[in-house]
């Protein structure tokens, strides 16, 4: 009995294979943009997701096909890139510094395939790779200036996922923005969680556990901070939840506009330090499709809109018109180079 059933099911399974093998669809080959995520996965609400949004925007607007592969561990990077090369992708977008080595090796072995890597750059330049870097501290500087202008307790706080340059650049820019406000206005607003000189600060050492974000936020609020900037991907949502529960503090989002991407916390989101990887990714895909692709790097900054401060949305009333005007001037000053950033974080 059992063997008969086994046989029948085996035959069924094989039939499915054969049927589908015969019914191979013949599609016109579209331009393919393929993204390999790092271990965070495509729904990390952080750089993997933002870059994927760029690819999807390209799919919608440029009549191309967008695909992604998630990496579960480091050994998957090379495998996934190879899978996309075998799939004859026209451009392969890799996300994050962890993919730096794998992307370099694949680009050098396949000089006719185009690559772009988010949050990484190569020197010397590889002719078929575009590195996407972000001068995030420029937008964070604005956020720091804003925070110092609206804080009631005279203390603001920040924490990061890990003490690595792509994270600390937010915290450093933020702290310097606060310091600049103090310098201009003669105030003494304090930034908790980041020491500009020692380059040390508060870190969860984790990019996934929201509970840790919650604990960090509670600690910072207990210390008197009423504005918190969590630079730790989804961990920051835990911080936002804690801030919402406490009810007398605000959060500043990172990477995307949290008012839109985390609507649960819209009422406590003062603004967001946006790192618009979708914009740069879209531009790179567009260049590849239109044949204007050239290896090197693109740096997103305030001037080209690669980084920006999000609108204040519901909390617009909290920001005095005078401060808004000062922010506009400051933005112009940063773009013109009148106000300079920390040279250590120059991309």
């Amino acid at each position, binding site marked *: 009995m059992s063997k008969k059933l086994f046989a029948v099911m085996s035959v069924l399974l094989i039939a499915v294979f054969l049927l589908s093998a015969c019914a191979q669809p013949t599609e016109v080959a579209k331009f393919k943009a393929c993204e390999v995520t790092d271990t965070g996965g495509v729904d990390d609400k952080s750089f993997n997701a933002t870059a994927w949004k760029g690819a999807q925007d390209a799919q919608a607007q440029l009549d191309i096909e967008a695909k992604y592969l998630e*990496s579960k561990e480091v*050994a998957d990077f090379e495998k996934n890139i190879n899978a996309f090369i075998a799939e004859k992708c026209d451009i392969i977008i890799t996300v994050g510094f962890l993919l730096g080595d794998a992307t370099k090796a694949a680009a050098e072995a396949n000089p006719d395939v185009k690559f772009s890597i988010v949050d990484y750059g190569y020197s010397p330049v590889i002719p078929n790779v575009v590195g996407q870097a972000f001068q995030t501290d420029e937008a964070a500087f604005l956020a720091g200036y804003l925070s110092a202008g609206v804080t009631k307790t005279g203390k603001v706080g920040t924490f990061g996922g890990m*003490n690595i340059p792509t994270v600390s650049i937010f915290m450093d820019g933020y702290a310097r923005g606060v310091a600049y406000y103090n310098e201009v206005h003669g105030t003494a607003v304090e930034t908790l969680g980041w020491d500009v000189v020692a380059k040390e600060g508060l870190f969860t050492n984790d990019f996934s556990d929201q509970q840790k974000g919650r604990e960090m936020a509670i600690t910072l609020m207990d210390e008197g901070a009423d504005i918190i900037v969590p630079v730790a991907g989804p961990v920051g949502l835990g911080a936002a939840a804690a801030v919402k529960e406490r009810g007398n503090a605000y959060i500043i989002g990172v990477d995307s506009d949290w008012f839109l991407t985390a609507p649960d916390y819209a009422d406590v989101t003062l603004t967001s330090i946006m790192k618009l990887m979708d914009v740069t990714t879209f531009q790179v895909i567009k260049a590849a499709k239109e044949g204007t692709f050239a290896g090197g790097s693109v740096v997103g900054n305030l001037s080209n809109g690669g980084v920006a401060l999000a609108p204040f949305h519901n909390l617009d009333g909290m920001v005095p018109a005078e401060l808004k005007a000062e922010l506009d001037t400051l933005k112009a000053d940063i773009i013109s180079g009148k106000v300079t950033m920390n040279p250590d974080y120059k991309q």
Partner: protein
Amino acid sequence: MRKKDLEKKDLLKTVIEELNGGEPAKPKKKRAFWKVIQIPALAILTGLILGAILIAATSFTVYDAFKVGFFNGIGTAFAEVGKAYLGLLTGSLGNPVEIISALIYGDAQDVRNAINPILESLVQATPYIFAGLACALAFRAGLFNIGVEGQLFMGAAAATFVGYSLTGLPAIIHMPLAFLAGALGGALWGMVPGLLKATTGGNEVINCIMMNYIAYRVTTWLLTGPMTRPGTGGMPISPIIEKSAQIPQFFKTPIRFHLGFFIALAFAALVWWILFKTTWGLNLRMVGVNPRAAKYAGLNITQVTIIGMALSGALAGMAGGNEILAINRSMAIGLSAGYGFDSIALALLGNNHPVGVIFAALLFGVLKNGATKMMVVSGTPIDIVTILQAVILIFVAAPAIIRAIYRMRQPLKEETAAASFTLSGWGGGK
């Protein structure tokens, strides 16, 4: 074999007979092979069928087709499932049409591309073989080594350190040295819970889990601190290991097939030899089957526990070292997505036998590798394969479900005894 060993073997037989309820073990029947593989085979088949239902049920294309009409929906469901499984199959074993045409018309690169899938499956299976052996060895000693993941991380860190810090060594010395450093790192990490169990009676399950946490944090600290790559500003990634430390890959890109696979097979053979052909292996298995009887027979349980955990840890460390030396070439956070935990189930699937572990690891490698292609061609998420693995393992762990579905007769007493032997290692006891 010396006389003393023969006496011990008799004792083991007696112990097993006791477990079986006093009946002497029956001689093997002719169709033993089918009997051994029927549950895993049926579990895999059932898993694939359930997976098919899942793929169809989570596909928006199928829902859209059902809106058009019922038969349209059914047809589309079959097409979608077929597309996904065809991707799984060609992605893990290769597409015969492509291979033949590459052999006839293509150049060397085409041939490499065409045969890459099956070789890549072997690459994916390699860490599973090492980690599966680690768990199987521990289970045989009645120890539940849930710390394989941590031991793997420590092994990887040790192998990485030796791999990049020593320069100027010839490959013939450097590569084995780095590999053995990985084994040593894992062995030391595995020995700690063994020592704690042997000397203080501390439960190895709890201690292994805690050692995992310590290993994660220690390796993260190492990677962002002492072992970070210069010039990255503290990114959690190590320098690239020296060329002389790399386990060689046999072919050019994209094939990653490497010597590590054969090293894994060699260690499987070694584990088999130790377990089944040496006195010490016999002692280890006796302790595993019934520690009280083993103690009564005068065996040194303390020694077996400590060395058993250390050997298990060494194999786990090799899994990590192999990944670094053969594939990654540097260590970064996100080294493993749970080889250590998958391997527990894998050892169970392989009945804690080195040969079984190899086959189970090949199955996992095939599924994992095929999943990538499946996702590329059909958009079916890779996570489906994780569910598939889980379902298959549930069926293997609970064979009664399979027996009920396929209306098989109840197992003889000896078979249940064999199953309960496996479970005694899970803290079930006897």
